[in-house]
């Protein structure tokens, strides 16, 4: 099924991802433009792997030159620090320079519950439960204080935002602070964890019954909650093409942006692999 717009929030995305992931890490080459040169096109997964390269869709604030300059800065920063591919639901560890820590570096492990922002403003939130206290930290991906970002477990969940973990039982947000990075069996597909989380009894921070959450067990609420949710729901929004269009960057622009960025990112990955290989060789 061809998708018209690359929409990060719709659930159709998840199915698409599984289909497209089979062709992962193979950059396609277009048959050629008018001049006869082959145009390298980034693989379609780039819009999921590097969503912060896409600008904010609000048309009043868009400027091509500024976006181009911002992308150059982002690639410069990525050449120094490896910012790996991650999704909401991945368990990550971030090391940050901190003047108040004993070692001057602070390392935090947590599950990514939300990510957002575009360009140099891109951020993600990590959540963990430390000493029975839930802790969430928002990290700005391009902040130069960040020394290292590791992905300990790369996986996705059934929802794009895991804010419901705040109202869930603490075991769903607890991850050992000395967790080791897990090896993936299948490198080409990012697994989707079909876990259904159990929520604590009400009161909750948000009205979860109104949000069509897939990753949550049956909420067991009285019927009046579901009736009110139906009254308040906007089922026509999924048919509203213009709304989707305004929330996303058109596919042609996305191709242009990622083909710009693609070769540099590939080079950086290659250099890192060589460095790692040289590192393991030295150890041997």
């Amino acid at each position: 099924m061809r998708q018209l717009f690359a929409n990060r929030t719709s659930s159709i995305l998840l199915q698409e991802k599984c289909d497209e992931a089979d062709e992962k890490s193979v950059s396609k080459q277009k048959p050629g433009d008018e001049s006869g040169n082959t145009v390298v096109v980034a693989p379609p997964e780039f819009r999921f792997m590097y969503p912060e390269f896409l600008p904010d869709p609000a048309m009043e604030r868009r400027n091509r030159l500024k976006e181009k300059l911002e992308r150059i800065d982002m690639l410069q920063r990525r050449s120094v620090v490896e910012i790996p591919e991650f999704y909401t639901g991945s368990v990550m560890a971030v090391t940050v320079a901190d003047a108040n820590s004993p070692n001057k570096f602070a390392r935090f492990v947590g599950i990514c519950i939300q990510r957002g922002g575009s360009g140099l403003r891109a951020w993600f939130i990590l959540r963990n439960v430390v000493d029975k206290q839930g802790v969430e930290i928002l990290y700005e991906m391009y902040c130069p204080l960040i020394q290292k970002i590791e992905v300990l477990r790369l996986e996705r969940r059934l929802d794009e935002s895991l804010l419901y973990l705040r109202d869930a039982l603490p075991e769903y947000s607890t991850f050992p602070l000395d967790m080791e990075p897990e090896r993936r069996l299948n490198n080409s597909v990012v697994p989707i964890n079909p876990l259904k989380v159990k929520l604590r009894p009400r009161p909750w921070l948000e009205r979860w019954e109104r949000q069509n959450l897939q990753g949550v067990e049956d909420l067991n609420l009285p019927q009046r909650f579901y009736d009110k949710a139906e009254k308040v729901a906007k089922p026509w929004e999924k048919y509203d093409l213009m709304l989707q269009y305004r929330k996303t960057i058109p596919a042609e622009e996305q191709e242009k942006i990622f083909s710009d960025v693609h070769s540099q990112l590939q080079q950086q990955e290659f250099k890192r692999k060589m460095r790692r290989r040289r590192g393991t060789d030295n150890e041997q």
Partner: protein
Amino acid sequence: MLSIVFHKRRRLVRRLFFNHEQVRTMSRVKRRTTHPPYWHVLKNNQRQDEKISSDNLRFVREVIQDKYKNKSPIKGSDLDIEKKEWDPKTKRSGVIARNIGVQHMWEKDGKKVVCTVLHVLDNHVIRYVPPEEYAKSIIGAKVFRNRKPLGCLVVGAEAANPDRFTRQYCSLFSEVGLLPKKRLARFIVTPNAVLPPCTPLTAGHFVIGQAVDVYGKTIDYGFQGVVKRWGFKGGPASHGATKFHRRGGTIGTGRDKARVWPGQKMPGHMGSERRFCRGLKIVRINMKYNVIYVKGTVPGPTNSIVQIFDTLLPRRKFTEAPPHPTYFPPEDGTLPQEDIWDSSLHVFGSPSISV
């Protein structure tokens, strides 16, 4: 009398005295018009549906290109350097730029800094009005009523197709032989900072670390109520308040003067006003794309035109000579450094900060 005033920068400021005199005089000043001043020449052509064939259209475009093609840029060596020595009282020309957005940068200690990105458009000097002549004009007479008159440099930016402008507007540029520009601006300059017509002005005109003033028209909010426009608190949202949630409340005492004072804060048009942001520091200059990064924010929405010039704030003026009267690329063909950063900023390609 204590009153809380809503500043243009959206910070609550407590003023000890409410100056009725000043507010009364200023409230009668007309702050916006939808038409240009009467001495301006009619600018835009009424679009006529000329049924012109594509071949003829191509020919017209070629003619325009040929006409304006061979204008060679002014070099630094063309100017007489003896007349133009910099001294601390010199006022240099300014530059017309477009505010293309806001980018976050970080300082060397990890502190985040919000920088506005300003794209210096294709500026060219159009003409110079000497001090004696400028002092006779309407604006010049007001500005220099009690002080020594200075000259005025007219700078244009953003070349456009002559078809969209009237003949009178294009004639402003025909003496100089430039493509008509969409935007014009005047900058007050001292006679020793005069530039000949056709001189290009680029981002190199400014120096890293200098302070600049940015003039622009603020965001147009349209007709706004008293809460957004003046920062009134309005009324309670509940507890039985009938139709009093975002209204102004009382507008006078009923006692002294027994009328509403002029300048009483009421709903009305908000925004689209001339404002200056003074003393903004330049933290990065990109010579390749002609872009300046300025620490802080400037008046106006994204993609609006602003004017940038050296600051008037006395403590942040130049102590050493800047590129005077403007920056000219080196004539021996060496390329200038493409991306210049201020020493306080963390360069993105450099290693992460360890505190």
